[in-house]
């Protein structure tokens, strides 16, 4: 929120610079997001008094002699402005001066006549009529005659000022106003607050009185109305318009300006009704009826329901409470009498209404943050004072103040100084605590260690107990007093990762060791991603959790599969010219327990990986998978993948562990490949492999313990066998038969496949190296021959395989 330095100074005697104040506010919890120096960009611009002025023949220009005080009594400046005259006091930008917007003025001839600067309009100084009356005149700014030649122009026109743009935290709605910030500044400086004037005189002869009923005190705990009669509309005074303008609000008329002024000064939105437009001249605050309609001041029509609070007259809604007045009852140039509203509406309700109707206004912004009843009372008094000060009308003898009965006193409680210091961990002296709290307008009575406290009425954020008071104390006392300690009273704990967390960390390291880069993708995507991977309608992956309020349609469902995310990463890399690589991610998929979702879904960690580029094929990826299995003491078997629509049917496998399918991997299906978002003719040439493993299922199969197998003291004996098998015979089946034939068979390694030549049509020759690992004794050649015979016999019988 924007707070002008000059306005603050009206309430607090500030004797430090704006920059120093910025630092102090910051350390007390009020971050100044921007300190705007209104004189920024204006340099060497002074009051000039025109002493001579003559037209330059044949041009629209005038040649002037200007008295600029100490800068020169007789400076020649040419101007094109027609309102220049001898004796005029006007801003003079000297040689080598600057104006807002980066304008640089230098001495140079105009139409052959030397000009040592420029005379300025109000606009050229960034002024308008509200900031400095007369600024919008066409031509030069005509300054008052009491201005002294050579004076810095910023001082003369009020640009020697600053605007503090302050970020106020959500717990401090009381600081959403100039007065609120003034109170903090006063506390920081240890000075009093000069309260704005609140007194006013009523006109006893007015018999009309505001007639107000509140039917929904739960949503409107306080409603104060007061009527003002015989209104005279006029422009509000310069001081008021200037303060409004500094905060970015243009002056409109005295009544409107007063309501805006009070909103900025005190943080209370006010509304003015035309009393004569109110049926029965009364106000009823109630919940809207279902389907009731209102048209607000900005001509928008809303259909309401009982969750919305409305201000009604005797018959109809005349305002959407806390949001905006109605078009049917607002003040206009014909208004004779008005009713001021200063009310407290419950912030939650206003927030909901503003949200649900999409009607967020300045007023609703204040109400949503929260307004204290103290402010509501203060604002009405201040408004009536301003009515009187500005002479806008006659004030009725009495207002109508409807209250739900909240206490008119601040929150009262006791706090022990030791409790405060126990939270902080340091000893703030008792008198310091008392002084700080008093500076912050708390009433404090000390009784030994106990403080009897009454919080200021506007501090509705203060909760009973020591923590809030401790925070008030330390932010004023200074956080630099905190002396770091290292959990000196805390118990010693062991800490560290759980077994599961360690395994996941290990998994990531294993993937890295195999050349995979870990990626981080968003947890949501869209149905289009599932379409891309050809996931069938009705497949389990289609049962997804949908976001009610996604940022965009392409981030609208919680992912049920990681593969689409990783495929997108591959595609994006290829597009950027990274034509090969390996990636992985270990992340959750989300499985709803029911749809619509009524309880927390299952979050299942999945490992997804992809390899792409010329060097990759099914078997390089199988290598990754095998290494993974070995690293965790698992044994994988592979079956042709079933129901994995995004993988190539002939080049993909389901991964089986302990008889259970834990995932699949393989080459990306051609149907998927040809639709990828890549240059059309290039798509077919990309070699992409993809796999996804249910990590949770896998981790359940991790052996719990590991025991070593004794190493034989005898060397292994190996034999090479070349076997002729049918083309369709699977290598895995052959190795199984070999391994099962004899308990001494260790490693079985395929080292060659040969087709053609003497090998018959439809056959292949496969060469295996078989290790026989003895345990209890060395194996003789005869032993090994016996094993080989047994293996060959089994191969013949089970797979119709012959030795070559």
């Amino acid at each position: 929120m924007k707070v002008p330095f000059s306005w603050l100074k009206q309430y607090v005697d500030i004797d430090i610079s704006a920059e120093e104040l910025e630092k102090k506010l910051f350390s007390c919890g009020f971050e100044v997001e921007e300190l705007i120096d209104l004189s920024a960009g204006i340099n060497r611009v002074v009051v000039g008094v025109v002493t001579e002025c003559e037209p330059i023949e044949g041009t629209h220009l005038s040649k002037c002699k200007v008295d600029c005080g100490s800068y020169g009594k007789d400076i020649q400046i040419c101007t094109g402005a027609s309102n220049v005259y001898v004796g005029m006091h006007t801003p003079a930008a000297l040689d080598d001066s600057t104006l807002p917007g980066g304008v640089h003025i230098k001495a140079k001839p105009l139409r052959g006549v030397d000009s040592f600067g420029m005379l300025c309009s109000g606009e050229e100084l960034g002024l308008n009529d509200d900031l400095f009356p007369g600024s919008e005149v066409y031509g030069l700014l005509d300054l008052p005659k009491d201005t002294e030649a050579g004076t810095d122009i910023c001082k003369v026109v009020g640009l020697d000022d600053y605007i503090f743009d302050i970020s106020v935290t959500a717990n401090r709605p009381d600081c959403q106003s100039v007065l609120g910030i003034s109170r903090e500044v006063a506390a920081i400086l240890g000075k009093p607050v000069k309260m704005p004037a609140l007194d006013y005189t009523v006109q006893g002869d007015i018999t009309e009185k505001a007639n107000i009923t509140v039917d929904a005190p739960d949503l409107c705990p306080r409603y104060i109305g007061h009527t003002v009669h015989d209104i005279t509309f006029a422009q509000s005074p310069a001081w008021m318009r200037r303060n409004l303008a500094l905060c970015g609000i243009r002056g409109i008329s005295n009544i409107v300006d007063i309501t805006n002024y009070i909103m900025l000064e005190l943080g209370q939105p006010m509304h003015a009704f035309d009393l004569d437009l109110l049926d029965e001249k009364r106000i009823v605050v109630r919940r809207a009826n279902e389907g009731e309609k209102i048209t607000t001041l900005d001509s928008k029509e809303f259909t309401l329901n009982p969750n919305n609070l409305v201000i009604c007259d005797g018959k109809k809604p005349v305002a959407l409470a806390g949001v905006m007045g109605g078009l049917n009852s607002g003040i206009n140039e014909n208004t004779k009498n008005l009713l001021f509203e200063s009310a407290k509406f419950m912030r939650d309700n206003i927030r909901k209404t503003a949200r649900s109707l999409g009607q967020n206004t300045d007023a609703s912004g204040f109400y949503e943050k929260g307004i204290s009843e103290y402010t509501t009372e203060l604002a009405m008094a201040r408004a009536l004072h301003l009515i009187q000060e500005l002479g806008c009308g006659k004030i009725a003898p009495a207002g109508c103040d409807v209250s739900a009965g909240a206490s008119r006193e601040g929150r009262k409680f006791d706090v022990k100084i030791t409790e405060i210091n126990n939270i902080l961990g340091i000893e703030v002296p008792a008198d310091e605590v008392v002084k700080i709290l008093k500076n912050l307008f708390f009433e404090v009575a000390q009784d030994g260690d106990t403080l009897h406290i009454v919080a200021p009425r506007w501090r509705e954020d203060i909760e009973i107990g020591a923590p809030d008071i401790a925070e008030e104390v330390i932010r004023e006392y200074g956080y630099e007093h905190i002396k770091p300690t290292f959990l000196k009273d805390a118990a010693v704990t062991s800490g560290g990762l759980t077994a599961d967390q360690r395994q996941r960390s290990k998994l990531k390291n294993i993937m890295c060791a195999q050349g995979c880069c870990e990626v981080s993708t968003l947890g949501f995507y869209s149905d289009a991603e599932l379409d891309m991977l050809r996931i069938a309608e009705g497949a389990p992956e289609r049962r997804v959790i949908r976001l009610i309020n996604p940022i965009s349609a392409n981030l609208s469902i919680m992912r049920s599969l990681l593969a689409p995310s990783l495929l997108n990463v591959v595609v994006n890399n290829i597009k950027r010219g990274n034509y090969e690589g390996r990636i992985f991610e270990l992340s959750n998929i989300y499985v709803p327990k029911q749809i619509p979702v009524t309880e927390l879904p299952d979050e299942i960690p999945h490992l997804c990986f992809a390899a792409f580029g010329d060097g990759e094929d099914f078997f390089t990826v199988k290598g990754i998978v095998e290494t993974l299995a070995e690293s965790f003491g698992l044994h994988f078997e592979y079956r042709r993948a079933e129901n994995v629509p995004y993988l190539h049917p002939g080049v993909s496998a389901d991964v089986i562990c302990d008889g259970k399918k834990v995932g699949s991997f393989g080459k990306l299906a051609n149907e998927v490949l040809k639709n990828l978002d890549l240059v059309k003719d290039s798509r077919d040439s990309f070699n992409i492999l993809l796999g996804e493993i249910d990590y949770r299922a896998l981790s359940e199969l991790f052996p719990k313990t590991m025991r070593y197998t004794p190493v034989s003291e005898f060397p292994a004996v190996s034999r090479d066998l070349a076997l002729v098998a049918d083309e369709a015979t699977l290598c895995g089946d052959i190795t199984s038969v070999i391994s099962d034939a004899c308990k001494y068979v260790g490693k079985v390694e395929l080292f060659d496949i040969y087709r053609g030549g003497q090998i018959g049509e439809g056959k292949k020759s496969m060469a295996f190296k078989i290790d026989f690992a003895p345990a209890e004794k060395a194996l003789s050649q005869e032993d090994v021959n016996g094993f080989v015979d047994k293996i060959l016999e089994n191969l013949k019988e089970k797979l119709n395989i012959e030795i070559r």
Partner: protein
Amino acid sequence: MEEIIRALREQLDAALANVRSKEELSEFWQTFMSKKGKISDLMKNLGKVSKEERPAVGKLINEFKEAAEAKYREVEQKLDALETERRNREETVDITLPAKKAAKGALHPITITKNEMINVFAGMGFDIYEGPEIEDDDHNFTRLNVAKNHPARDMQDTFYVAEDIILRTHTSPGQIRVMDAQKPPIKVLVPGRVFRSDSDATHSPMFHQMEGLVVDKHITLCDLQGMLDKFVQNIFGEKVRTRLRPSYFPFTEPSVEVDVSCFECGGKGCGLCKHTGWIEVLGGGIVHRNVLANCGIDPEEYSGLAFGIGIERIAMLKYGINNIGLLFENDLRFLGQFRD
């Protein structure tokens, strides 16, 4: 006989001087040193020498033989050395040719940063807890002292999947889950993904946070700063200090924003710290009494501190990454650079 030996010595020396290769050396051996060689022939002729002279001549022959063998070995060694030298020359490679190596993978910078942070706190006795990413309103807000329609809910734009089920907006619900399951002393770190409906140059709709919680007797603001000092010194270097300043979070009271002295300029002011000497890194405070009470922990007996750190923020500062988008683009040229 002496004459014969002298002649043979000359012959032998001449022959050895001409030896240029192992083959020639072997030929030389055959000619002179083998059992059928010329030196053996001398021995055979010893019988012809008179009995009296025989010992002296025998000695001469033996001396000659030993000397010849020594010369032979010398030449043999020389040839060996030459041979090795030749082989070395032939086998010499250009050591600047490219290495043959397995492709190197890399952990994501977020993971590396997260692990580093975990290591620091695990060393301080913190357990690591990971809660659900899809949370209920109760854990994410209500029990953290953020009632329905609390203005603080506006601080965090929430993704909803049902009326009361949301994508967690912070890792703070982990506090509640831990305190429900465990009573003090508690020291726990809750890393994880969080989600906010916010996406622009400086925000990603998904990012990572790390929550820290300590609940025990007599936990103070001094403890919070002391612990965070150790943390930032581990991450950013020994000389870094923290600065606390007031802030507001509904679940802590007092609440603080924690800045670190700029590790780039040492606090003098530079582009990284926007010329303030300080960099905002995290938020924290003393756990609100309501939050403890909401988890059945007596706030009269125990107190706690809590803090929340944006992992992206730390990673970006650590690696000088200026755009959060880079962390989620997953360009291999970017990812491949990181090491832990």
